C-alpha cells in the first residue's frame, strides 16, 4: 500500500499482530474456561468430602484412605456410637501421600487427634492415580483457585508425571472429572453460576449415590446376583510397591510423632473375593500388620472377624470390594465397638489371625473347605 510516511506500514503490522495474538489468546482462554466449567464435574464424592471438612469447625476424628474407606465407614454412625466429631475424607483412589496430606490438614486446621486409615490389599500397589489426585487437589483447595492451580502445576512437574500425558491432564483438570452428557454439562454450568450445593449436585451427577453427612455418602445398590467378579480378575495379581509401603510407614511415623492415634482398618470384602487372592492375602497383610503395629498404630482387619462377631451378608456389598450404605452402617457399628473404650478387650476375641489361614478358610468358606476335604 503506497504511503508518504515510510514508517506507517511497519508500525501497523506489529499492531495487527498484537491484536491477532490477543484475540487468539482470548479465544483459547475462553475455550479453556468453558471446558473447565461445563465439562468438569461440579459435584463429586471427593468435593463433598472436602466441602464438609472445610465447613467443620473442629474435628476429633478423621477417616482417610481410598474408596474402601469412603464407602466403608459411616461417620454419622461412628459419631452416634462414640460421641466423636468425624468427617470422612477418604476419596476414591486416594494414595497414601494424599492421605498424609489430609491428616496434616485435619490435625493442623481442625485439631484432629484420631485418624482411621482404611486400606485393602490393592491399596499397597497403587502409587499414582491422577484422576484421584486432581479431584483431591481441587477439593482441598476449594475456594482457592490459585492454590489449586499451583498444586496442580506442582503435580504436573513431579518426576514420575512430567514426562507423561498425565502432566497435561493435570493442567486441564476437567479431564480427570469429566462429564459429557448434555444434561450433566448444563447442570455443571448452572451450579457454577448459581453456586449450587455440592452434595446435591453430586447426587444429580453420580447415579445411585446419596448424601448422608459429614463428608460421606453411599449407594443402596447391592452386588448383582451371579456377579462373580473378584478383585483378582479385575485388577490382576496383587503387588506391593515399596514406595507406597514406605508412604504408609511415613503415615504411621507422622501420627506417632504428633501424638495422633492411628487405627488402620482393612475393610471387609466378600469372603470369595479375599479367598481369590490365595496365600498372597495373609502373607502380604501379615507383613503390613507387623509394620503398622511396630510404628505404634492399631491394626484391624475386618476380614479376619469371626463370623459369630461380624458376618456381613452379600447384600451389604455394593460390589466385590466396597460396602453399600447398609453395609457401611453395620461395619461402623462393629468398628465403634473395636476402637471404643473397651475395644482392646474385644479385638482378641473378635478377630482371627493371618497365621491360621486354613482356619479362616474353614470358617468363611465352609463349602469350599468341605469340597477340598472330600477330594
Amino acid at each position, binding site marked *: 500500500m503506497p504511503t508518504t510516511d515510510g514508517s506507517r506500514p511497519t508500525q501497523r503490522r506489529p499492531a495487527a499482530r498484537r*491484536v*491477532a495474538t490477543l*484475540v*487468539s489468546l482470548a*479465544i*483459547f482462554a*475462553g*475455550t479453556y474456561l468453558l*471446558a473447565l466449567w461445563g*465439562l468438569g464435574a461440579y459435584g463429586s464424592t471427593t468435593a463433598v468430602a472436602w466441602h464438609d471438612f472445610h465447613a467443620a469447625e473442629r474435628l476429633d476424628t478423621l477417616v482417610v484412605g481410598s474408596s474402601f474407606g469412603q464407602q466403608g465407614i459411616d461417620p454419622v454412625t461412628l459419631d452416634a456410637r462414640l460421641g466423636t466429631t468425624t468427617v470422612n475424607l477418604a476419596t476414591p483412589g486416594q494414595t497414601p501421600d494424599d492421605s498424609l496430606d489430609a491428616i496434616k490438614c485435619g490435625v493442623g486446621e481442625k485439631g484432629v487427634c484420631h485418624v482411621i486409615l482404611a486400606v485393602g490389599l490393592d491399596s499397597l500397589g497403587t502409587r499414582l492415580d491422577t*484422576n484421584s489426585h486432581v479431584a483431591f487437589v481441587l477439593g482441598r483447595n476449594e475456594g482457592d483457585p490459585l492454590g489449586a492451580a499451583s498444586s496442580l502445576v506442582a503435580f*504436573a*512437574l513431579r518426576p514420575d508425571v*512430567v*514426562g*507423561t*500425558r498425565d*502432566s*497435561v*491432564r493435570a*493442567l*486441564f483438570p*476437567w*479431564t*480427570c472429572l*469429566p462429564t*459429557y*452428557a448434555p444434561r450433566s454439562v448444563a447442570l455443571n454450568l448452572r451450579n457454577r453460576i448459581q453456586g449450587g450445593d455440592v452434595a446435591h449436585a453430586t447426587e444429580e451427577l453420580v447415579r445411585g449415590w446419596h448424601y448422608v453427612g459429614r463428608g460421606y455418602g453411599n449407594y443402596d445398590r447391592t452386588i448383582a446376583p451371579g456377579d462373580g467378579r473378584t478383585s483378582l480378575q479385575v485388577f490382576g495379581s496383587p503387588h506391593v510397591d515399596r514406595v507406597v509401603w514406605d508412604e504408609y510407614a511415613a503415615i504411621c511415623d507422622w501420627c506417632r510423632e504428633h501424638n495422633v492415634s492411628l487405627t488402620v482398618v482393612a475393610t471387609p470384602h466378600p469372603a470369595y473375593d479375599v479367598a481369590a487372592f490365595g496365600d498372597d492375602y495373609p502373607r502380604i497383610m501379615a507383613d503390613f500388620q507387623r509394620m503398622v503395629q511396630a510404628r505404634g498404630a492399631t491394626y484391624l482387619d475386618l476380614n479376619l472377624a469371626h463370623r459369630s462377631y461380624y458376618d456381613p451378608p452379600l447384600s451389604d456389598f455394593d460390589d466385590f470390594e466396597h460396602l453399600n450404605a447398609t453395609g457401611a452402617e453395620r461395619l461402623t457399628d462393629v468398628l465403634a465397638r473395636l476402637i471404643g473404650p473397651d475395644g482392646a478387650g474385644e479385638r482378641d476375641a473378635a478377630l482371627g489371625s493371618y497365621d491360621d489361614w486354613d482356619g479362616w478358610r474353614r470358617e468363611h468358606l465352609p463349602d469350599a473347605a468341605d469340597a477340598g476335604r472330600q477330594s
Partner: protein
Amino acid sequence: MELLSLQFAIFLVALLAAYYAVGRLVGRGQWVVLLLGSLAFYGMAGTWKTLAFVLVAGVSTWAAALGFSRLDAGLKARLGETRDRSARKAAKAAVHRRKRLVLLACLALCLGTLAYLKYWNVVLFELGLASSPHGMGLLLPLGISFYTFQALSYLIDAYRGSLQAERSLPRHLTFLLYFPQLIQGPINRYGDLAPQLFSTHAPREVDLSRSLQLLLFGMLKKYAMADLLVGLITRLLAGAGDGAPGSLAILAILLYSAQQYGDFSGGIDMVEAVSELLGIRMAPNFRRPYLSTSLADFWRRWHITLGTWMRDYVFYPLALTRPMRALGKVAGGRLGSHVGRTLPACVANVAVFLLVGLWHGAETHYLVWGLYNGLVIALADLLRPAFDRASSLLRVDRSTRGWHAFRVVRTFVVVNVGWYFDRIYDFGASLACLRQSVLHPDFAGLPQALAALDMGKSELLQVLVAGAVALLVACVSLYEERGGDASGWLSRRPVAVRAAACAVMCLVVVLSLSFGVGGGFMYANY
C-alpha cells in the same frame, strides 16, 4: 518422555529459545544446540545406556565414509601419476576392493547390531532356548531402525560418491540423532537434511501458524482417533474368527486401517511440525495413502521415506545384478519382452517386501504380510498387458471419475486384506478371520455381535469422537488430493476463525486424554 507431555513442551521451548538465541548472538553454530538437544531428548525419551548403540552406528559410518573419501582422493592422485592403462585399471580395482570391504564391514556391524537386538531372542525362542520371543532384557534403543537406515543411506551414498563425506563427527551425529526423526522417522537423506541442519535459521523464516496447525492436526489423528480405537479393535478381534460373523473382523480391520494411519501419520505430522519450528523441513512421509489407485501407488504414499530407501538401496541394487539381468534375458526370450523387462523387478519387489515384513518383526504373520504385498504388486506388473487388453475388450473408459473411484476402492480393499496379516498376530487366526470375512460375512449378524460387546457410554463416546476426527481427516485428504491446501485455506480465514478452529482441535485432543487409553507410537516399536 511422551511427545504430549509437559516435559516435552518445556524441552521444546527451552531448545527453541537457545537455538534462536545462538543464531542471533553468535550468527552460526545452531547445529550444536540441536546436537545437545537431541542428546538430551534421547536421554529423556529413551535411555542413556542405549546411546552406545547409536554412537557405534554413527562413528562407524562416519569413519567409513571418510575412509572412502581418502581412498578416492588417493586413487585420483595415483591416476594422475601414471598413464599406463593396466596400472590405472589395477589401481582402480584395488581401491574398489578396499572400499567394498569397508562397506561390507560397516554394513555387517550396523545391520548385525539391529538384527541382534531385534531378532536374537526370537531365534533363541524358536530353538527352545528362551521362554518368550520378547523381553530378552536388552533394551531396544530408541529409533534403532530409523537411525540405522539413515546411517546406512549416508554410508552407501558416500560409497557411491554421491555425497561429500562429513569431516566432523559431531556434525555427523547431529544428522543421525536429530531428535524429531528419532522416534519413528522419517528416514532423512543426508543431502536433503544436512544443508538445513548446518545453516543458520531465524524465527521469521518459520510459519508459526502453519506449524502449530500441523502439530494440532497430528495430535488429533494420534490421540483423538488412533488411541481411541485401540481398545475396540482388540475387543472386536477377540470375538472374531470361526463361528463369529465375518463382518466383525471386517469392521475391526477397517478400524485398524484408521488407527494405524492416525498413529503413524499423526506422529509424523507432530515431529514435522516441531522440525519446522526449527526452520528445518524433513522429508514428507505420507501423501494421502488411502486415496491410492494401486498397491504400488499406496506404498509410494505410505511411509514414503522407507519406500524410497528400499528402492534406492535394496530394489535397484538387487534388480540390476547380473543374475537378475540374466533372468530377465531368459524370461524375455521364452515369455516375451514384457515379462523379460518386468520379472527382475517383480522378484526384487517381493524381496523388498519380505524384508519390510521382517523389519516389522520375525513373526510369521509379518512375513506373510510382506509376501502378500510383494506378490500382489509383482502380479499387477506382470499382468498389466492382460488387464489392458481386458479393459479394451470391455470398453472401459479409464479416464472417468467412476473408474478412478473404483481403483481407489479396489486398492483400499487390497490394502485392508493385507492388514489381516499385520494386525492379527497369529497367522492361523488371521487366515481364519479372513476366511470367515470372505465366506461368512453375515452383515445381518453384526449388530447382535456388537451388542454382545456391551460397550459402555465412555466407549461409545470414544468411537464417536474417533469417527468425527476420521471424517475430518477424510475431508482434508480429499480436499488436498484435488490440489487444495487445507492449512493455507485456514490461514486465510479471519484470526478469530483460525483461533477458534485451533482451540476446538486442542479441546478434542485434551478431551481424548480423559478416556485414559492409548500408548506410545506403533512404529516406534519397529
